[in-house]
């Protein structure tokens, strides 16, 4: 994994030097500063529809955001024979767990939309993403009433062995434009852009659109010690509508 996105270090080194006391102060300071995230989420939320573009608006080169092709061996295994061995389990707090093959996902009704991808770094790119609305998958799996989050576990680990993952709440996941994308600009998504299945949520910043999804889990809370995603654990906001 190559990390192009600048990794946050909300550690003492970036602000006040070293030492556990200062460490704690920095953590509390960022805790206070970060308190507005809930306010932003409550006010802005995920309520509108992302702008739709024309074919002629599509960027000639879809810039790769943050991470490129996983070096994971599991990824190479799954990719063999045109993803014949790829399976996407939908598990956790659901009444009807499912396991999808890529062919099954492709056989479902597809939604294709030309939308803008806004990167947290400040750039944007327009592309046509097609795939299965996540709402369709959720409706099939039937989340239990105590399910709050949809956690996407992905192929790829960083150099320290930390697994790449992301999460959305049920409202964001069921947004009509939130897709499990299989195609980009009319062709199967390539490995750099998240093959074979990539989450695409155009109402939020790009880092929420997890690549290389290998498992979907419905849960009542984030895993222990988790802030809800790989980038969130590096200090980025969980709510990425802003």
């Amino acid at each position: 994994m190559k990390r192009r996105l600048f990794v946050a270090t909300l550690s003492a080194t970036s602000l006040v030097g070293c030492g556990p006391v200062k460490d704690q102060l920095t953590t509390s300071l960022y805790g206070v500063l970060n308190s507005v995230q809930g306010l932003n989420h409550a006010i802005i939320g995920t309520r509108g529809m992302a702008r739709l573009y024309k074919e002629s608006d599509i960027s000639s080169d879809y810039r790769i955001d943050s991470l490129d092709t996983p070096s994971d061996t599991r990824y190479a295994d799954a990719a063999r024979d045109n993803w014949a061995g790829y399976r996407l389990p939908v598990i956790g707090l659901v009444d009807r767990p499912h396991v999808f093959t890529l062919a099954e996902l492709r056989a479902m009704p597809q939604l294709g939309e030309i939308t803008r991808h806004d990167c947290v770094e400040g750039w944007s790119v327009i592309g046509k993403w097609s795939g299965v609305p996540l709402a369709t998958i959720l409706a099939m799996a039937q989340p239990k009433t105590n399910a709050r989050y949809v956690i996407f576990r992905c192929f790829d680990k960083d150099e320290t062995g930390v697994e790449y993952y992301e999460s959305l709440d049920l409202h964001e996941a069921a947004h009509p434009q939130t897709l499990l994308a299989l195609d980009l600009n009319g062709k199967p998504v390539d490995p750099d852009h998240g093959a074979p299945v990539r989450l695409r949520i155009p109402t939020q910043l790009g880092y929420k659109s997890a690549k290389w999804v290998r498992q979907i889990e419905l849960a009542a809370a984030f895993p222990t010690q988790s802030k809800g995603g790989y980038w969130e654990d590096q200090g980025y906001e969980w709510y990425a509508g802003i």
Partner: protein
Amino acid sequence: MTEPPVAGQRVYRHSVTARVTHWLWALALLVLVMSGLQIFNASPQLDASDKSDSARRVLSFDARQAADGSTVGTTTIFGHTFITTHVFGYTDDGAGGQAERAFPAAVTLPGSQDLAAGRVWHFFFGWVLVLSIVVYIVVGAVRKDLRELILRPSDIPKLLPMQLYYLRLRKDPPPHGTYNPLQKAAYTVVLFVFLPLIILTGLALSPGVDAIAGPLTWLLGGRQFARTWHFTLMVLLIGYFCTHMVLVFSTGAWNNIKSMITGWYRLKEHDGVGV
């Protein structure tokens, strides 16, 4: 004006609300500029377009290898490239070295490259700025203090004479109230044009806001264009700040600063009171 103002007289010029909000937004703007430059460094290009488009690039900061193997920093404005090593493009990374980064560590928050932390600072102080402006305007309107500071049609003929006075081409300033016509023009533009626009252009960068208020982003020319406006307004506000500093320090620094702390101001010759 109930009674004619006399030079040397002490008047209560700034309400508690005005003083508190003034210092709050001074702090907020400082943090917002520094954290904004930190965020900008993550993608140091500005385009006049919706999606990123190098053909419509207005400003970019880059670093490249020179013929002698050293690294130079460059600034490109409307296609014109300038060497700006150690100032813009290739600058202090906050960890004792030089790196490919648009703005140096001294003017970013945090100093070292840390987009996530820059965003956390930016969004918190964005709220401080918004709330302090809202409180200032609402309280100022209710107490009618704002009337003294808003430019009115009758002030417009006085703008040129006031400028001539500042340029020492005229002996006396035109008669005016608490604030002279140029001050009123500056405060009115900053308060009702620059500050609201810098907030709106910032909001337009957010995909969640764009999904709710699409016409806003569209009116600004798209997302990257909104980012260009947001940056431009920052430059304008810094320009205003520099002018503000020159005038604060050249027209009785201590009297001016004290009045923004205690509220009490000692009138000088030509100073008026009221609208």
